[in-house]
């Protein structure tokens, strides 16, 4: 009785929905209602045919709240969920619009709609061709009549006897939008294809810098990356491991997404079995060719035989339990309803609105997606540095924003970055700013930085002083004494060495300085100082040598 409830009837509709939680059979029966699980939350999408809109409800434990409305451009739609992304298939238009509802934003992730439509046109060709060539069994068209969309991410092509699995082609999605911050945000939340996410994210940051996009934009991008890193650092720490395993068992019973990720990561041969080997390989290939051509709009279809029995047997024989469970669950529609039927129960166990599962997933997997500051320095700044030498000011500003993001996230920058920054400042003759940044600790003191400052001091003596002072403040006694000696302050160095018991600096260095200054009393003083400090000094070659020099000077 609540099917096709118009916009007007929404409040009433809401109540009906909450009731349906206990008894959701009618939900599944209605073709216009789809249930997806993303980020461990359960959403109900209800198509409003009259208003051409998809209403999004979120199931809480004791309430159903409407979250937003997604536009619909087709009379027939289907909904899938891959890697916590809601896919709305606009069947008539043969497009998919992707939504990432993590931050309650209901804007499509990738390109605006026209671009998507263009992507589909090529997609239908591209995706179909390799499949045709390889298996030569599949003659159907994409979004054909025989397509049944199975929750969460499978498509059953009844006409051709094929089962399709939906994947996200992150590279293509990333290439389809130029909004670097939002795409980074999207990437950082993905849990499939971790290494791809990482390389993509780094590449995106690199290109934004190389393209000299506005600093604010770059800053936002880096904020996102470091944010996700610091979050992952927080969740990884602690006894998450123990809880993780138990939770995962629990989750795998109702969340095929979790397991299907495992499937996608493993080599197709071992995963699904010899029978479907060719098909799945072709799927991978088609995916590659699509991303190479660069027009694919982001969904790769991995083909798999829908032959249920062969699938079950092959996976059983392989003994990969996770896979078999995932596939078998997904392949039979009855099992799907089982799975969905289980969800409310699990929800009931959690006192929170289904958030705990999400955080666990983050904890276990984001660690590898997240990019550490060191990785940022190594695979962004170091790589970019040479190309940016023509415009160091921009890179300096970028690094400054990076440092700000770091401090906001409570992270430390590697000393190399400070060294690089000082070099950049020095080569644009901004010595005054080096001094300012050292004094207000934007450039955090370290031995590396101090040495760099001393090195730069060849051109600018005040900068050298900064470096020497930094050595003293860092209590790097040996280096400090050595630096003082280099500047010819041998008496000061000697006094300092006495106070802090620095015995690692060669006495001959002090003596040499005293000789160079041609000061007889000082040389005598230095000599006797060392003779007293280290009794064995009198037996050394240095002693006799400088004693000889001293006698000659007198």
């Amino acid at each position, binding site marked *: 009785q609540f099917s096709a409830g118009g916009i007007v009837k929404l409040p009433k509709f809401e109540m009906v929905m909450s009731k349906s939680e206990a008894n959701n059979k009618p939900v599944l029966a209605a073709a216009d209602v789809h249930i997806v699980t993303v980020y461990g939350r359960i959403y109900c999408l209800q198509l409003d045919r009259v208003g051409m809109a998809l209403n999004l409800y979120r199931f809480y434990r004791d309430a159903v709240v409407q979250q937003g409305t997604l536009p619909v451009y087709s009379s027939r739609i289907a909904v899938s969920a891959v890697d916590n992304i809601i896919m709305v298939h606009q069947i008539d238009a043969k497009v998919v619009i992707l939504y990432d509802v993590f931050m309650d934003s209901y804007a499509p992730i990738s390109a605006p709609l026209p671009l998507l439509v263009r992507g589909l046109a090529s997609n239908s060709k591209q995706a179909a061709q390799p499949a045709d060539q390889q298996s030569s069994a599949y003659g159907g068209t994409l979004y054909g009549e025989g397509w049944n969309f199975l929750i969460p991410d499978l498509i059953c092509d009844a006409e051709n006897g094929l089962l399709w699995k939906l994947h996200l082609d992150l590279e293509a999605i990333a290439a389809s939008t130029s909004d670097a911050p939002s795409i980074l945000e999207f990437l950082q939340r993905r849990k499939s294809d971790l290494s791809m996410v990482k390389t993509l994210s780094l590449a995106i940051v690199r290109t934004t810098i190389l393209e000299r996009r*506005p600093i604010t934009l770059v800053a936002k991008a880096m904020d996102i990356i470091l944010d996700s890193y610091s979050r992952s650092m927080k969740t990884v720490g602690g006894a998450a491991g123990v809880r993780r395993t138990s939770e995962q068992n629990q989750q795998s019973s109702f969340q095929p997404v979790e397991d299907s990720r495992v499937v996608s990561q493993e080599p197709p041969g071992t995963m699904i079995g010899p029978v479907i080997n060719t098909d799945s390989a072709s799927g991978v290939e088609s995916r590659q060719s699509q991303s190479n051509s660069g027009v694919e709009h982001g969904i790769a279809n991995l083909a798999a035989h829908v032959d249920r029995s062969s699938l079950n047997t092959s996976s059983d024989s392989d003994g990969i339990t996770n896979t078999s469970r995932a596939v078998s669950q997904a392949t039979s529609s009855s099992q799907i309803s089982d799975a969905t039927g289980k969800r409310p129960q699990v929800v009931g166990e959690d006192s929170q609105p289904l958030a705990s599962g999400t955080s666990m997933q983050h904890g276990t997997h984001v660690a590898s997606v997240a990019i550490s500051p060191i990785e940022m320095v190594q695979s962004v700044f170091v790589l970019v540095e040479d190309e940016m030498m023509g415009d160091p000011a921009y890179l300096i500003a970028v690094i400054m924003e990076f440092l700000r993001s770091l401090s906001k996230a409570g992270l430390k920058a590697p000393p190399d970055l400070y060294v690089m920054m000082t070099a950049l400042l020095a080569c644009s003759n*901004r010595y005054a700013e080096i001094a300012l*940044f050292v004094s*207000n600790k*934007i450039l955090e003191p370290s031995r590396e930085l101090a040495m760099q400052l001393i090195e730069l001091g060849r051109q600018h003596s005040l900068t050298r002083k900064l470096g020497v002072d930094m050595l003293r403040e860092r209590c790097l006694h040996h280096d400090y004494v050595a630096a003082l000696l280099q500047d010819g302050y041998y008496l000061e160095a000697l006094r*300092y060495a006495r106070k802090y018991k620095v015995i690692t600096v060669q006495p001959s260095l002090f003596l040499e300085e005293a000789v160079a200054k041609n000061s007889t009393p000082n040389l005598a003083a230095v000599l006797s100082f060392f003779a007293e400090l280290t009794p064995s000094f009198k037996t050394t070659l240095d002693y006799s040598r400088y004693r000889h020099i001293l006698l000659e000077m007198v």
Partner: protein
Amino acid sequence: SARRLFQSPRSATGADCPAGGSSVVSVKMGLSSAAEIDGAQLCIFDLRRGQQEGQELDKILFFHPADCPILLQLSVIGLCEGIITFTRIFSPEDDCEVIESDKHCHVFYQAEPDIWMVLVVQKIKDNESTLRFGALQGILKESHSLFAMFHGPIRTLLDRQPSAEFARGHLHTFVTDYLSDFSVGKKLQLPTYRDSLTERGTVQMLTVSREVALEVQSLTTVLGSCLRNVICQSIVLFEDLLVSTTLPLDDTLNLYTYAILRLTPSALSSNGNSWSYLRKGGYVNADTTLSSANGAAAAERYNSRSRDTSPGGQNQMHHNFRPLQREKLSKGKDGFVAADFATTEIRGAVPLNPILWFHQAEERMYLCVYQHKNLTILLVIPASSLINGEEGIAHVKRHLLENASQNIVTVEQKLSRGWGGENAYHVGGYRYILSDPNRKVSRASPPGKVITLSKDSLLALNRLRGEIDLEKSRAKRSDPTHDKDYEVCIRAKNNAWIIAKISRGKELYMAIEKGGETLLYASTAVEKFSNRYCEGAFSAD
């Protein structure tokens, strides 16, 4: 040493003075007549001009007070010239810095080659010396570098227009405006021993946490991008303290000094006060008549001759461009500090935003000042990058308001939150000044705390600083590359400890009044201070 040769009037009038005959005469005149003048005199003259007898007047570029008789002006300058020539015999490398006579003190500063500034100060009858020539010379240096920032080097002005009317006109308005800060009634109140815990020619920094510093830097980046193709430089101040700068040392110092004098919120509010004061006192009116008439004519002439110079020349074309004139500066409704220079200009279109000359960058820049609460932002825009002057500036201002407002508000909030008030840098028990002459940075006890020191302490401190100045310049002459360390502790008459310590180029002067009896107490006090506030820079080795 040649520098302090003249300790008494007798030796100053010595017959063996090698300068020309007229100079000897003027020496006598100078000393006798200077004594008649109340208060201080400041003159600027060019030794390359008026070298023929009868044309001595041509040397004078500026004389304060302006109503001083010409003859007297000539005699003062003649004396100075004589002394300069004389001392060069003994010390060709280094300039004469000061002569002290019985009643006067002549402080010299060679601002540009052969262009000298001399300040003649009357000594107050007191057993103790109350003046420190280093502090007085600081005034000369400061006024010159500010002048050069707005008008370019004096020599350049003179070369462009050999009749020098133009340079005189500018010097007259500018230095007079500058000196108005020191004037009490008709007299100049110059720094005395009471100012021994201040250091002219240094920048006072605000200490901020790293997080805030990064926030400020991010603001600087936004400010820098106000022009699409060129990076704008900027200086950010909070209250009267420097927060950040992208300019080199010297330019930072000049702009900072200017900001402190005229642009910061406190300076702007006192602008109003002094305006009313000046109107009542009628101080400036008296001497603007004669030479400004000349100046106007000269400016007019100059204007027509050099129409085709670069836009940066605009300051020079308008004699009534007076960046130091308090009453013309005010904060507009849009948050920008504007100067109303254009009032009486015949040709109109005087730049609302002054153009600056930076000697390190060697480029002319527009100055644009924005203020939000206690935050003052000085944006410096390369003149070459703005083709259509004022219009371009309006564009930059718009850009600043659109893009930087949010950052400005955030930064201001964060700085205000962390700001400890005017006594933020007070250290209980100590009255100190900490300075780094190389980096031109200093920090001192707040003035409100310094005045609690007794006269004896201040006099002793002043004296000690004078001695140290002398020692420093001696050491510098013998080995300019080597920093010499000093440490002096004295027990003053009132049992206060007066301490000076120089370590690797950094200087610390302090007075501790309620201290212990022993020298050990004094040295541990310094040690403690050094470790807590100077990162151990003055700790004993």
